[in-house]
């Protein structure tokens, strides 16, 4: 701070200091996130492999060390995609075609600004953090819609229409699930939501009083990120690969990164809002000694494992059944549970 004030003067010094500090913090958040995304793809292939009694990737290693077999696979995949040519289809709208992957990954990154990793360990501790997350993630759908339209391809267009309708529908159920969380915690600040879950260990976490909302949020999260069993936007057997059929090389890789970054984001949000964020499950010695961020990462890893488990277990939903589940099951369930929680909170039985 002092150095900046002496170099840039008293007017500009603090401002440039804040700017540099924020940029460094952004890198500190985004760089591990990208590594996490890379190794999430490896974890997915390995876990699904074992679930299907296969081994999964086990060849590519660092510097020929044999017991690291498979660990360099994401790096090799990334390098391969970087080397490939980006083909822009004839008749495509060039500007929007290139813009679409950017529109997809931008919200997936920007949402991390308000995520608290530990007490006081958050880039922007804004008051309306929950609303910010909802607003930013709702913009992710533009990438998909624009990609489908700009590709000038029927398959891509059908995929993007399916995806847009699905994301907009499930956002409503997700929003109502979050209304329940905000009623229980009485704040929109994400750190405040975690602090509202302090108490008798894991019994104070919101997944107990808000269990239906927890399930709705988790399943809607799977649908929002277009993951199996709700991946009709890709639907290999019907529309090849959906909205990103025409994308190759790094442009495709950006869509891929965004999907996995969104998965990690949804898992983090589930952990923060329903599974107590950085709080340990028991309030005594061996558990409280571990720093909070490891508890958060552990919970995120657990929810991500659920995502992969769903993918290995369930067959793909039919499109009309996805819509039925969203509109006729999830939205009524959340509405009823909000009323129940509202009544419950007025009684003395509400102990959260």
């Amino acid at each position: 701070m002092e150095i900046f004030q002496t170099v840039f003067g008293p007017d500009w010094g603090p401002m440039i200091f804040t700017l540099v500090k924020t940029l460094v913090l952004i890198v500190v958040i985004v760089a591990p996130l990208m590594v996490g995304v890379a190794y999430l793809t490896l974890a997915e292939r390995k876990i699904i492999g074992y679930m299907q009694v296969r081994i999964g990737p086990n060849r590519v290693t660092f510097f020929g060390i044999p017991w690291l077999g498979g660990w360099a696979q994401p790096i090799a995949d990334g390098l391969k995609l970087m080397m490939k040519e980006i083909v822009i289809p004839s008749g495509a709208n060039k500007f929007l075609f290139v813009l679409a992957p950017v529109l997809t990954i931008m919200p997936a990154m920007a949402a991390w600004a308000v995520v608290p990793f530990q007490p006081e360990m958050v880039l922007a501790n804004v008051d309306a953090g929950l609303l910010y997350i909802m607003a930013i993630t709702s913009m992710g759908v533009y990438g998909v819609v624009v990609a489908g339209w700009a590709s000038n391809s029927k398959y891509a267009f059908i995929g993007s229409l399916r995806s847009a309708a699905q994301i907009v529908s499930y956002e409503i159920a997700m929003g109502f699930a979050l209304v329940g969380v905000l009623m229980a915690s009485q704040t929109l600040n994400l750190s405040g939501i975690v602090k509202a879950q302090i108490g008798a260990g894991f019994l104070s976490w919101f997944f107990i009083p808000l269990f239906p909302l927890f399930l709705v949020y988790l399943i809607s999260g799977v649908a929002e990120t277009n993951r199996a069993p709700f991946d009709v936007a890709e639907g290999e057997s019907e529309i090849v690969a959906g909205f990103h059929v025409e994308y190759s090389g790094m442009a495709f890789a950006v869509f891929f990164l965004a999907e996995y970054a969104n998965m990690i984001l949804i898992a983090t949000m589930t952990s923060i809002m329903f599974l107590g964020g950085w709080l340990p499950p028991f309030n005594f010695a061996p558990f409280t000694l571990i720093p909070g961020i490891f508890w958060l990462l552990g919970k995120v890893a657990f929810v991500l494992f659920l995502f992969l488990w769903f993918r290995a277990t369930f067959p793909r939903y039919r499109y009309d059944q996805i819509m039925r589940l969203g509109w006729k099951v999830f939205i009524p369930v959340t509405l009823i549970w909000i009323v129940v929680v509202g009544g419950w909170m007025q009684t003395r039985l509400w102990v959260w």
Partner: protein
Amino acid sequence: MFQTFLFYFFSAILLFAALRVITARNPVHSALFLVLAFFTSAGIWLLLEAEFLAITLVLVYVGAVMVLFLFVVMMLDINLDRLREGFWNWFPLGAAIAIVMVIEMALVLGGRYFGLADMPVPEARPAGYSNTKELGRLVYTEYVYPFEIAAVILLVAIVAAIALTLRRRRDTRHQDPAKQVLVRARDRVRLIPMPPEPKE
């Protein structure tokens, strides 16, 4: 000072985007510029410390309404030449309306009776001030009846919109998931014990 810079930055983008909404030849581009315009005006609202309204603008208009708009616009096959046919015939009327609107806006913003001079600069709120909480308190206490009436009007609109598009065809086959989950295997499959037939 930084806020002033941000204000002019957002305003420049907003004006450019708003202009492109009406001048872009491709309707999809127009819709996307409208999205940009909403987003930048949300930024300007944030500068006014109206964070709840700003985020709601993004959530509702950018996140939902404009997606559906884009959805429709993408599937239209618009013939631009036919749309531009009567442009010069209608130009005088359009220009007259535009001039009236400019005069009205000038009256509101610059006049002696409404102007900025009559509006004192609002005090900056302390850091812990929650816009959302204050808005919620007002809506559910002081303005609860107007709020409820607005909600009922919206509900009527939803019911009407659905009733207009709902049609039931008797000749289509459809599933009833509630009945499907109630099915038991013994209702559907009958196992008949049969002696194996001797080989001839």
